[in-house]
């Protein structure tokens, strides 16, 4: 990584860089598919309240478990609610919560990792031991415990998810920092008498940013998976809020005669997760980061 290269890059506007990355991502078929799915879901999340044909919580016993028809495109569920309406609304909560959750994970995980990588020594040892300990507790056990004791409100879910999915980023950020820390420009910054803070902000962050962003994009899809698992188990959003995980778990018992009520949310959730995954992969490739050898931790 050459110093003058970094400064040349900084001169380009952020927008120009972003569009360059997006064009590179879209030039591969998998990246194009992933991006289109993701953009479709994001647009859908914004406009779905305005285009939903029915009320998502209107219960009508006379319309129980109707097969798909012209009026009810995806049929109705066990309470006579329109499955189409609930499916297009079902991604909003999950998308919002996991998006802000990954931002939090990115922030604290990234900063702590950079800090540990920079200072090293005793502090680094202690922090990494604690991170290792947290990594060895299954996320689902910890999340379930927090949620069952503190409740399932958004104010609990976002920080809790952000915390538990950030611990893996600590390691990635630390490793990325180790890669740049021995470079000459860090040594010369130290020689110029810059503070740790200034070195982190001006020298390290521009160099490890890509690796951390890619990791954050990947975390987003895992967090979405985790959040829907929580909803599926009954520890996520509470009914009657339309949510894919919750819809699948409700419709599962009746799927032998009303498969449509379970297929629609399955397609919604799977396509979103695959979309984010493909996008994150393409993002990594566009930035020249190989993460195919990483384990899902």
């Amino acid at each position, binding site marked *: 990584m050459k110093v003058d290269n970094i400064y040349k890059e900084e001169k380009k506007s952020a927008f120009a860089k972003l569009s360059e990355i997006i064009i590179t991502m879209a030039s591969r078929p998998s990246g194009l598919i992933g991006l289109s799915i993701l953009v479709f879901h994001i647009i859908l999340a914004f406009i779905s309240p305005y285009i939903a044909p029915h009320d998502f919580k209107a219960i009508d016993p006379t319309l129980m478990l109707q097969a798909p028809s012209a009026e009810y495109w995806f049929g109705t569920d066990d309470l006579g609610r329109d499955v189409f309406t609930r499916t297009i609304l079902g991604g909003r909560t999950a998308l919002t919560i996991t998006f802000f959750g990954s931002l939090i994970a990115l922030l604290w995980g990234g900063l702590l990792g950079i800090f540990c990588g920079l200072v090293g020594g005793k502090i680094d040892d202690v922090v990494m*031991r*604690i991170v*290792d*300990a*947290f*990594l*060895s*507790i*299954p*996320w*689902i*056990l*910890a999340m*379930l*415990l*927090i949620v*069952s*004791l*503190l409740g399932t409100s958004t104010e609990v879910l976002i920080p809790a998810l952000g915390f538990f999915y950030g611990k893996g980023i600590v390691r990635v950020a630390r490793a990325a920092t180790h890669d740049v820390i021995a470079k000459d420009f860090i040594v010369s910054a130290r020689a110029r008498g810059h503070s740790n803070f200034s070195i982190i902000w001006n020298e390290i962050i521009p160099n490890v940013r890509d690796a951390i962003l890619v990791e954050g994009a990947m975390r987003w*899809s895992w967090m979405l*998976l985790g959040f*829907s*698992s929580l909803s*599926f*188990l009954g520890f996520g959003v509470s009914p009657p809020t339309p949510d894919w*995980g919750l819809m*699948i*778990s409700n419709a*599962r018992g009746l*799927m*032998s005669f009303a*498969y449509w009520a*379970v297929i629609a949310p*399955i397609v919604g*959730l*799977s396509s979103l*997760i*695959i979309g984010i*995954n*493909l996008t994150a992969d393409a993002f990594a490739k566009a930035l020249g980061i*190989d993460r*195919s*050898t*990483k*384990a*899902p*931790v």
Partner: protein
Amino acid sequence: MLFLIIKRILLGFVTLFIVSIITFVGTEVLPGDACTTYLERQAFGEQLEACYRRLGLNVPAYERYVSWALNAIQGDFGYSLSGEMPIKDVLGPRIKNSLVLASAAIFIGIPIALILGIITALWRDKLPDVAISTVTIFAMTIPEFISATLLILIIAIWLEWLPGIVIVPTDVSFLELLPNIILPVVAIAMIMTAHMARMVRSSVIQVMASEYVQMAILKGVPYWKMVFKHVLPNALLPAINVVALTIAWLLGGVVVTEVVFNYPGLGRLVIESISNRDLPTVQALAIILASIYVSINLLADLLTLMLNPRLKTLQIRK
């Protein structure tokens, strides 16, 4: 070398020690203790006192931690709240059932993953790779509960080949369990295989691009001899660690799969104990699952260390 092994084992114990503190403090700091959460609205007066005495919650926290940790090392996790029976008796059959499930998935998954990974790597970007890679991406990104639900819907409901839900008592014998576990094993093995196949693929591709393989090609070593003698031994070594991490990561996914199939393993116990607010059992589960994670990783580290002569000298020099 011996020093390295001892150091790794000690580090594993340090991690477990921190886990025990985290779980203890976690269940302590969060609002409500075991008694108030368990008794809920009846948590006052005589009943609360009796519960405190029964669980020994009337002594200071650090004393409780020490006695709990000392007992836990000997395998005694105290009594569960709801069942009123020793936690180790509750855990025993559950651990056995989960082990059956996990080992079946691993025995099926690892060979398939190796074969798929090697095929996709050798035919990189050709038809076999594109087809298999697309399937693996689907298998590994779709949540466990979705693939499990789809398996039940297709295999058990539409085709009626296998029972969709496991209805057996917790302490059933192995042979009775067998037909019931096919679908759960497939559901778990699918995700695991997909992850491992992807990692084997990229590892093999990396080695294929290395200089000594290029050299072997130039020397005219026959293709398959080169693959089996030069590429695979070197490519599979780094995969051990990642495979271990994948297995350990599945501990979380197994919880969901066990719930979907109603399988009486550790995973369902996690959900049951949390729904019943049975904090002593939750603590025991956290420690046990964390020990499994730590020991799998430790095993993988030691295995790589022993199989890789380069790593030995490298780490000692550090």
